[in-house]
């Protein structure tokens, strides 16, 4: 039966058909749908972990105990899990252990581009790379079985254009979950130096055999004097580009780019064209085998971003000296302004940012930011950095101790707080670094689609309490009170005391979803034009996306965007913003807080 599946769904079904019993992951675009799909299967242990390291550890432990296990994450998440990943190759596993990462070339939704295939080379773990959802299904299944057969972890590397492509996929039904039994093996599992050294020798022996095994995932299509080696989605672009260029070529499709099959050493006597997405991982290995290549290393294909049909057509043309250049794309008759993303209308983060902006007015503030919806605080000038999960508190502490004249306000979302800021919270206490940590708790992992966050079962203020850091809790929809407390927190930090402010209100999108389901229609707010004096506080300082500045400077609220949060009415100094149904406002905010 063919289904129109997202690559990520196909990966989940592949793992199911291989009898996966334990799966864990941390949400992150473009990988989130893998675990989301698996969560529907209640006969297995499937979990959103608090971070990727935990996810990999759960799956790794399960595989040591003989279960078939999977861990899923985005490329940068594997950095967080890199420590157990490397050990997993040393100990090997008993059940199947598949690590799935979805890379995000072009950084559609990420802070950097990373090619997971490097991790395969570094950790001695073979990497499979599908080109489309059907292959993703197949490779997830085969990868898990192969891992179990080899007693070695296997990585499945996806990219945005596999994970987030929807295509017809023939799926097989789920196999019963294979759990296991842990058997002691101290020499193998306790990596004290004398054991680890023996394991390293074993890893190298295995690695050598993987290079032969890799041929199983190799296929050659067509023939001609030209030889193209292509991996993952690179294969799809290469086939299409050759067709456009009317070039007859032998296309060597690589399904396991790490390690490359040894027999590729004689893939071609002349120059071989290499098409791959990400870094030149296949190309470098080919060169190490003595193959002459034309790919990314010498700039035939761009080193940044995703492959495109254009870049592959022009790259192959350059590599073969064909001189083909595609015409420039048409330009629009009117250049539209860029449309950067904004915080959603009524986003609780909007209120939190507003409160701290007002409370810290006149101070030299460094807004130490983080990865999540609140990175969009960049629009109000309240994110001076956002480099990686946990950067807010980690880098914030470093900045605070280096530059003692400024006030650091670190802003982190709840999911990121639990993911990457807990050890830092302990350092905040033990080193007594004076700064304000704002936990922007919207009770969901909102940026990746609203996965649950641990905030309801482990409230951040209780952690602050346990650690012994002064803390406050605010409701960002109550701006007056939020500003007062933000002022108190700023004063604490100025006096040398670290302080945590938990700003709690559920994600607006979730609240609206709940309202729709329960049939409740939230009130809307509108501007009384006669009263509006064009001061701009609503559209310039609060900066709600639903509020437009009309040509005369007056505000106008788009009713189709307004979420009824009431924040604009609270900040308006002229009482010019009113609700359509005043009696509903309190009820709505109450319902919202329960979303």
């Amino acid at each position, binding site marked *: 039966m*063919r289904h*129109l599946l*997202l690559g990520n769904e196909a990966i989940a079904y592949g793992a199911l058909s291989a009898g996966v019993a334990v799966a864990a992951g941390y949400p992150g*675009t*473009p990988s989130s749908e893998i675990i989301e799909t698996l969560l529907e299967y209640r006969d297995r242990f499937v979990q959103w972990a608090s971070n990727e390291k935990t996810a990999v550890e759960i799956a790794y432990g399960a595989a040591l105990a003989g279960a078939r296990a999977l861990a899923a994450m985005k490329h940068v998440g594997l950095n967080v899990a890199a420590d157990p990943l490397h050990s997993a190759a040393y100990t090997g596993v008993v059940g199947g252990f598949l690590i799935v990462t979805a890379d995000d070339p072009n950084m*559609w*939704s990420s802070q950097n581009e990373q090619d997971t295939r490097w991790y395969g080379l570094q950790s001695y773990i073979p990497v499979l790379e599908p080109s*489309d959802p059907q292959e993703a299904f197949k490779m997830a299944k085969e990868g898990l079985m192969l891992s179990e057969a080899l007693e070695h972890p296997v990585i499945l590397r996806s990219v*945005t*254009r596999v994970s*987030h*492509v*929807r*295509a*017809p996929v023939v799926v097989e039904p789920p196999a019963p979950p294979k759990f296991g039994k842990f058997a002691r093996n101290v020499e193998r599992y306790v990596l004290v130096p004398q054991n680890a050294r023996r394991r390293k020798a074993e890893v190298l022996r295995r690695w050598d055999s993987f290079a032969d095994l890799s041929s199983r995932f190799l296929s050659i299509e067509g023939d001609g004097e030209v030889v193209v080696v292509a991996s993952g*989605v690179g294969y*799809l*672009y290469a*086939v*299409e580009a050759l067709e456009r260029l009317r070039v007859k070529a032998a296309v060597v499709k690589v399904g396991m780019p790490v390690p490359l099959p040894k027999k590729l050493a004689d893939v071609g006597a002349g120059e071989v064209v290499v098409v791959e997405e990400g870094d030149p991982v296949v190309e470098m290995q080919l060169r190490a085998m003595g193959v002459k290549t034309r790919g990314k290393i010498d700039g035939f294909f761009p080193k940044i971003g995703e492959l*495109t*049909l*254009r870049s592959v057509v022009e790259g192959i043309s350059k590599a073969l000296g064909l001189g083909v250049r*595609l*015409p420039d*794309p*048409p*330009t*629009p*008759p*009117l*250049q*539209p*302004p*860029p*449309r*950067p*993303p*904004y*915080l*959603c209308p009524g986003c609780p983060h909007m209120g939190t940012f507003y409160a701290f902006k007002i409370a810290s007015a006149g101070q030299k503030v460094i807004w130490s930011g983080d990865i999540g*919806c609140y990175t*969009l605080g960049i629009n109000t000038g309240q994110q001076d950095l956002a480099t990686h999960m946990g950067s807010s508190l980690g880098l914030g502490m470093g900045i605070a101790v280096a530059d003692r004249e400024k006030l650091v306000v670190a802003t982190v979302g709840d999911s990121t707080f639990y993911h990457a800021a807990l050890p830092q919270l302990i350092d905040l206490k033990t080193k007594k670094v004076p700064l304000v940590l704002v936990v922007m708790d919207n009770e969901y992992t909102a*940026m*990746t*689609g609203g996965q649950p966050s641990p905030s309801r079962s482990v409230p951040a203020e209780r952690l602050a309490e346990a650690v012994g850091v002064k803390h406050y809790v605010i409701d960002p929809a109550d701006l007056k009170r939020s500003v007062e407390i933000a002022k108190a927190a700023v004063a604490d930090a100025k006096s040398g005391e670290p302080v945590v402010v938990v700003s709690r209100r559920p994600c607006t*999108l979730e609240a609206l979803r709940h309202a729709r389901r329960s049939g409740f229609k939230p009130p809307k707010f509108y501007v009384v034009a006669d009263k509006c004096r064009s001061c701009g506080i609503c*559209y310039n300082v609060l*900066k709600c*996306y639903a*509020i*437009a*500045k*009309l*040509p005369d400077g007056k505000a106008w609220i*788009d009713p*189709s965007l307004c979420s009824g949060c009431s924040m604009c009415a609270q900040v308006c100094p002229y009482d010019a913003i009113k609700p359509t149904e005043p009696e509903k406002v309190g009820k709505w905010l109450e319902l919202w807080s329960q979303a």
Partner: protein
Amino acid sequence: MTLARWLGRAAMAAGYDVKIAEVHGLSQRGGSVEVHVRLGDRVYGPVVSEGDADYVVAMEALEALRAFRYIGGNTVLVVNKRVIQIPGRYLDPEQVYKALQTYKNLRLVPAFDIAMKIGDPIYENSVLLGYLAKLLGVDERVDWLDERNRRAFDEGRRLASGDLQPSASSMAS
């Protein structure tokens, strides 16, 4: 994305290969989002290349301008007659429509107005879906749509077949 999925399902039912490329994440935060749908006997690459689209459907007029790079010789450009303003960058909608009308294969569809008549802007996508279904000659059953969405869908289909005259300006071709 819903629109693309519907198209994909219809194409698959008709025996075609299909690939839909989505970029998730920022649409609900006011960012610009593109979804690419490719149909054929065998589809390789997942993304429509610049200058290669047969149809470009814009849910809003400024994004139609942004999507101009996909337009080639005979591309039909279907645009919802509506401007979603960008904060701080107000543009006169009439000026935007006028710019779009310089393109010969434009279909400016009053999907937003129709949706508002039905009662909620949320129905505008179903109007565009119906319009597109007619253009593509897809005769897909839409019983999975609820009553008001189906009304919107039918309105779109009627618009495309010329039963209902769209605004004169949109007929420039």
